[in-house]
């Protein structure tokens, strides 16, 4: 009986260890905002929601970002990839994702405006940071835990200045 108890005790310890490790290694630290706030995030005034609905319509995009500096239209695989001033956005059977490249795009998130080069304090002071595999900090925004889509804000680890903003749809 005591041997069984011993095994049971150690099994529990092991279970707790596994739980702890699983929890530690699998969970990202993201900032959960509302769905409206998430899709209402704007790039030069164009919300993500509208960007998705544009389905890569160049005229719509031009209204907000001007003429694209690069275009890659590959009908064979349904790809429409544009680089505007400060924004790269791809469509392939819908929005693939975008990356803000420089400070020519003003991003408005939950009423807070920022751009590439802004200090992360522009996002507020209650930001939750995610730790990458290399130990760097990043900022992830989602509207639900484990949501497939997320906004990723990368910043300089020393100066805390934002250097990249991406919208990612996991494949």
């Amino acid at each position, binding site marked *: 009986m*005591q*041997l069984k108890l*011993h*095994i049971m005790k*150690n*099994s529990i*310890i*092991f279970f707790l*260890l596994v739980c702890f*490790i699983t929890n530690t*290694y*699998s*969970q*990202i630290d993201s900032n959960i905002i509302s*769905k409206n706030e998430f899709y209402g995030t704007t790039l030069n005034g164009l919300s993500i929601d509208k960007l998705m609905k544009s389905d890569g319509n160049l005229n719509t995009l031009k209204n907000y970002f001007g003429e694209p500096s690069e275009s890659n239209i*590959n*009908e*064979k*695989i*349904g*790809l429409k*990839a544009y680089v505007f001033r400060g924004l*790269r*956005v*791809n469509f*392939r*059977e819908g929005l*693939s*994702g*975008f*990356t803000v490249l420089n400070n020519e795009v003003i991003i408005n998130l939950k009423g807070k405006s920022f751009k590439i080069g802004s200090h992360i304090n522009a996002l507020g002071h209650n930001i939750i940071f*995610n*730790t*990458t*595999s*290399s130990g760097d900090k*990043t900022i*992830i925004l989602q*509207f*639900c*835990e*484990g*949501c*497939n*889509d*997320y906004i*990723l804000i990368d910043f300089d680890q020393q100066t805390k200045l934002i250097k990249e903003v*991406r919208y*990612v*749809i*996991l*494949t």
Partner: protein
Amino acid sequence: MRSYIAFLLLALFSVSSLSAQLYDNRSRYLRAPYDDYDDRYEDRRETHHQPKTNYRHTTNKYRRSYYSYHKNVRRHTRPYLDVDELYREFRDPDVYYRYKDRSPYSNNKNPDEPKFKFNCYCSFSIDIASLINWFGSQKKEIEKERKRIIDGMEEEYLKELNERYPSYRKETSFEKAQKDFFKRYVGKFNSWYSQGEKVTYSDYQKRFVHKLSERLEVFETALEPSMASSKVVSELKKHRDRKANLNIAFGDLKINNKLVREMPSSQYRNYDLSYGGYRSGVSVVQKMVSERDLYKHFSGTSNNLNDYMSQQYINQYKKEDNLEERFALMSAYLVDMKENSYRPPSNKIPPKGFMHHVPYDFDDIYKHYYKSIDDFGINSLISFSKAKALVAIINYPDQIKKILEEGGLKGSAIDYFKNAVPVNYELNTIENAVLSRIKNQAFNWDELKNLPYYNHQNSKNPEVVMSIDLRKRTFLNFHDRKFFDVDIVLNGGLTLAEYNMHKGIGEVLNDLYNNSKYWYAEGATIRHFLKAKGVNIPNSLSNYNLGKLFDFGGGNTNTLTIQFSDFAKKYIKNFHHGDGIYGTSLFTDIVKFALLKLIADQIPVDFAQATKPCPGDPVPNPEIAPQKGPSGILGGMYGCTRYGGGCVGQDGRDKFHGGIDLKANYGDPIYAMYDGFVYSTGYDEEEAGYMVLIQSTVNGETIIQEYFHLQDEKRVGLNADGTLNYVKAGDIIGYQGDSGNLGNAIKNKIAESHVHLKIKKHDGSNSWNYENNFNIINPKDYLHTHINNDGTTGQINNKCN
């Protein structure tokens, strides 16, 4: 008068015979002195600041040992009364518990069980303390009977000894030899034999004692039926009743009519009641010296492998100071460590187990252990142990082979092989390797003979590719108590003390070698570090095999090192490294050595081809790569399996995933599922990354397979002249990368490395527009390997039929 004399003679004969019988069979009746032993023992331990140890916290080792112990003690206990020895031998708590737990006379549920027990077959159990006290005066008679039995064996004994050990006969008079032998060694053999292990000269000893016991059985049968009604038994009953009022308990044994508890401990020679073992190391050293003397007598004339090995051992260390002491301590430590499942990591707590009599002082052990390192360098103990096994293999290949083959893979032959090396620690790796190769019918003795056993890890120009301080590990810290606690349960008795003793990760790893998880972990680690150096190991070489092929160095250090040896560099080929040729120290394991030899002697092993997937699978043995977070493994499946809105699935899942994610490590080759033409090789920086699209006809239907997140380089592409490139199922179409959104997701720990497989099927119309005429379907249906609906991989069919 005549009848009166006859009656007296008859009575005397009965009493003497019975007393001899009772004693000769005493081991059958042992149990009663320990009925009240629990509390007393625990009290004594507490008095001496020893933690309470649950002796029932035994592993199967103990239980197995018990059988051997019980069986042999019953049969082979020497048939003469030696109170001192009896007390020493049977008061050991471990012996007691083993006996008590399994004894047919025990009754753990009823501590008040009578100490005498009779049944209709007229057998009985008896309180040995009572027996000793009651028959104390009969010692001379019993001795006489014992001598009669032994003398009856003398002629046969002489003959056998003379035949087996002629040189012994020449060197000394037989009478003296016989007497010395019996006095000095039979008791020792009995002791060893009762331990269930370390049975040297067992054949000889068993034959001798077995014949002795045969006679006793006859003797017993003749007298036993009369016992139930005898005066002797009635006296014993009375004694039992008296004893209940006399407060006689364990510890009140008498020796020479003096209570043990009233004696100074010096009267028990080196035996110390309070400590539970011999206090002085002298006795142990003496034993070892005696053992060596024995080998000395028989060396050169015996075919016994033990003799040879012992001689090797002695020769190797004969110039060393304090040989006996070191020998004793090392042997005792190693044997004891193997025997026990767990011991608190204190340096002052005496051990339990068979070697309890060893002057067990951790500080001392440490001192000697590290002395060996100072003298012979790091890993000296490990190498030496392995060397001993290898010496046996090299010098006695036929014998060992025969032993192994005759015994199959079962216990006795292997045990013998283990016993062939006096200290059989560290033999596991070699033993397992040998067994493994026998199983695979790949046992090559010539190869084994050529296996270097000394400094085999050395390399003149090794390339150290990794060195980490294991103390900085956050999980599975090898010196973490919790880890060991868990591991003790999971791995069947690895001891914390064992690890602490060696403080060497090499030791830990050696033990973990028996666990397949270890090989996966090792392979994964190697893969990780090779990747950091720009070496991409294909997925076809699984982590398991990678771990088997390569090896960690380390030894008695907290630093874990991977290095590529010169030898390995020379022979390992086609390893998808920029320089092409790499390996590591392959010499620590025979299996690795064999693999290396195979590679060197025959053809380079193309790992990529070795485990090419069946047609229909883009990677070997495909597994779903789970999503991190709540989507989990289902999130890696096709359909409404994720979260984020847009569809309605089960369990609240509401985000569509247009393909399946299959695990693939960076650099793994990705294979064409079906024959077909390369439809396109696009690049979508925001999502799919570098991709390959292949158009195939499957069951008369046209499909496009899309493989995402590849590396740009080495992708199959369109022909230079613009014609379509045709690939066959199983052709490598590219290598796993982290392009598109994957690299970022991996970096942020949102996803793990995978190839995203998407399949679109043509709608059967006459139009062939990618967006309009191809519909996304579930790729699972096109895989060769069945993926269950819960995301797990079904049975893998490597026959590709």
